[in-house]
């Protein structure tokens, strides 16, 4: 899929895609409604206690990441699994590609992994002749469409049943009706055959438990469960921060994850797997590889953005975000959309590429309050804007002039009063019936959609002396 380099062009394209917007509004609306109902059932107070606990657990892990990673690696190795430590996405891709070559793998089945999207794994494997198939229904749909996910937990949220039917008909021998149940039925049948011929399975990782080396996978469809049961060689890709100390912490996270993501009490299939099957067992992988990816994460440790590593990828900040709800996921440009993407993209991929995203938000704070692990997302968006000004020495030419002028004017009452009187005197060409409907930049864009009140005959600071005198009399 062609991605426009400029955010402005991307979101304009989104704003004109009515079918997509309708689907996204429907999807986010349902998800946040279900989440609200789930929280109500838990009780707000207990929910807050859950969030506090989860935040504390995550923060502790992040600030002791070396210790937990060390423990995890040792346990995975002890359990007979192999571990690849990849500083960059390229290193991870190379390791997995080499493995596929070594195994002479033809059919590779994947369950959802945002990290694999991040490192562009599929194209690399396809280039060397592997048939890579996404098994999560939503992921498969967008794979067939040649697109990237538009939502962290509902990757094909932007598509409707008719679009899906077209995509399925392109790979199906018989014509498939557009009923959703039929579409799902076709996916089951088609992908089931693929599952049975699997050479290598690739999964993401919801949580890795340091004390046992177990990998937790959460899917509603059961695809990750099937892949880890049937793959002779299993590869799990994880962001290096996705660790928990042990089972007890996991129970807190699973309880939060499902409710935040979809409003379920628990995801249908939660699987804990320690990797390689033992000698007597017949299913499960004979070979297990855990690929631990840094790819920009370690840079965040010890910074004011460190808590971004708390994220458990539930997607609830997307549903809460008014901007996401009105432009969908693709406009954000990189893998992670919504508020989490607006913070992660510039942090992982660079301000030069994705700095604009920090401005793609109303700073309403809904994301922060939706976050189950209490990442102060909107504070981070402020901080990113500040970084742009401080580190790049500019927030844009117009802004630089505006705010330097603003602080010089607004810090001194006489200058403030003089300049606002000037503005009032010279606003007349724009004013019609006490309203302003057209104007020069930077308010021109504002005025395309909205009116603005004209400055009044008297400012409040001009009225105050009368009010004060009247009182004294």
């Amino acid at each position, binding site marked *: 899929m062609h991605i426009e380099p400029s955010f402005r062009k991307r979101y304009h394209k989104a704003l004109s895609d009515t079918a997509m917007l309708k689907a996204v509004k429907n*999807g986010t609306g*349902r998800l946040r409604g279900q989440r609200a109902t789930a929280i109500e059932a838990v009780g707000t107070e207990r929910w807050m*206690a859950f969030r506090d*606990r989860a935040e*504390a*657990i995550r*923060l*502790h892990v992040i*600030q*002791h990441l*070396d210790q937990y990673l060390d423990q995890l690696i040792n346990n995975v*190795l002890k*359990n*007979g*699994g*192999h*571990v690849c*430590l990849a*500083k960059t996405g390229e*290193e991870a891709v190379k390791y997995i590609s080499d493995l596929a070559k070594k195994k002479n793998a033809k059919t590779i089945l994947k369950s959802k992994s945002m990290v694999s999207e991040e490192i562009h794994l599929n194209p690399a494997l396809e280039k060397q002749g592997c048939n890579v198939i996404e098994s999560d*229904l939503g992921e498969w*749909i967008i794979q067939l469409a040649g697109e990237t996910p538009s939502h962290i937990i*509902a990757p*094909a949220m932007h598509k409707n*049943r008719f679009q899906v039917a077209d995509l399925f008909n392109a790979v199906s021998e018989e014509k498939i009706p557009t009923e*959703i*149940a039929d579409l799902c039925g076709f*996916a*089951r049948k088609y992908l089931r055959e693929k599952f049975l011929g699997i050479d290598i399975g690739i999964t993401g990782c919801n949580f890795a438990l340091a*004390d*046992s080396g*177990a990998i937790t996978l959460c899917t*509603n*469809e*059961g695809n990750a*469960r*099937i892949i*880890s*049961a*049937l793959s002779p060689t299993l590869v799990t890709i994880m962001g*290096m921060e996705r660790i928990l100390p*042990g*089972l007890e*912490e996991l129970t*807190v996270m699973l*309880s939060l994850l499902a409710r935040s993501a979809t409003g*379920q009490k*628990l995801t249908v*299939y*939660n*699987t*804990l797997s320690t990797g390689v099957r*033992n000698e*007597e*067992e*017949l299913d*499960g992988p004979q070979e297990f590889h855990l690929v631990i990816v*840094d790819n920009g994460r*370690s840079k965040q440790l*010890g910074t004011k953005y460190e808590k971004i590593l708390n994220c458990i990828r539930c997607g609830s900040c997307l549903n809460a975000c008014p901007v996401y709800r009105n432009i969908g996921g693709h406009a954000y440009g990189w893998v992670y959309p919504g508020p989490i993407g607006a913070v992660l993209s510039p942090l992982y991929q660079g301000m030069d590429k994705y700095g604009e995203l920090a401005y793609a938000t109303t700073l309403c704070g809904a994301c922060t309050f939706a976050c189950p692990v209490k990442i102060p997302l909107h504070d981070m968006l402020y901080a990113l804007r500040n970084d742009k000004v401080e580190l790049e020495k500019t927030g844009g030419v117009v802004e630089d002039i505006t705010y330097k002028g603003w602080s010089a004017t607004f810090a001194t009452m006489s200058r403030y009063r003089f300049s606002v009187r000037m503005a009032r005197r010279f606003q007349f060409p724009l004013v019609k019936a006490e309203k302003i409907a057209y104007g020069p930049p930077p308010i021109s864009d504002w005025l395309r959609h909205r009116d603005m009140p004209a400055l009044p005959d008297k400012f409040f600071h001009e009225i105050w002396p009368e009010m004060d005198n009247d009182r004294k009399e």
Partner: protein
Amino acid sequence: MAEGLLAGDREAFFSTIRQNIKTPPGGKAPRVENPMNGLFTQRETTVEERQDLRERFIKEWTTLGGKAFSIKNRVELAQVIKQIIQERQLQKAMYWDHPELENLKLEEIFSDTQASVSRWPLEKKYNDWIGKAAAMEAGIVWGDIVMAETGTLVLPASSPGQPSTVCVLPITLIAIFTTAQLVDGFAGVVKFFKERYGTNLPTTTTFISGPSRTTDIEMVLTIGVHGSRYVYALILDEA
């Protein structure tokens, strides 16, 4: 078991991390002691309380789209199994090699029905069992521990005879357990795991809450996309 191999430069990978997590100004966040405290129901239950848990489980399981049965004795068990065979038009089923299931003598129950039942393993070699397993229309498992509040079967593959394949591949899943297996929620599960396994977890443990589902097309809930579409819980009275 032979230890795995490590690829990549461990020192280089860790050096940035160690450098960056140097003590933050407020000190590092301490480990959360008792992370589950106050969040989950923690209690020992009596037989009577477990009767209530059965009701709770049935409510949750049914809401999720499953079917559940309270069963008093082996006669009722046979009736329910036969009903399911009818309902699903079952021909072939497989079941876990589990001592509790062994006691129920499932072959006997199946013997006067249209369906056949086989105990795992079906074959010893992957290429042989995979085809057979894929042809199975139902998998029968024993619910080692079951959470009532969330309607969740907890299925640790405690022995090679209890693979996850049985619980996830067939379109119909039948889980049998007694009220003695019921706990409120995660607190009971963690206690069970700590006592039985410590940190030495079984190769796989599967938590199943209802039938496989997806909302990936237009957010419309659809049941049975990859895993089980029909899930039955058969809850026996405890001895």
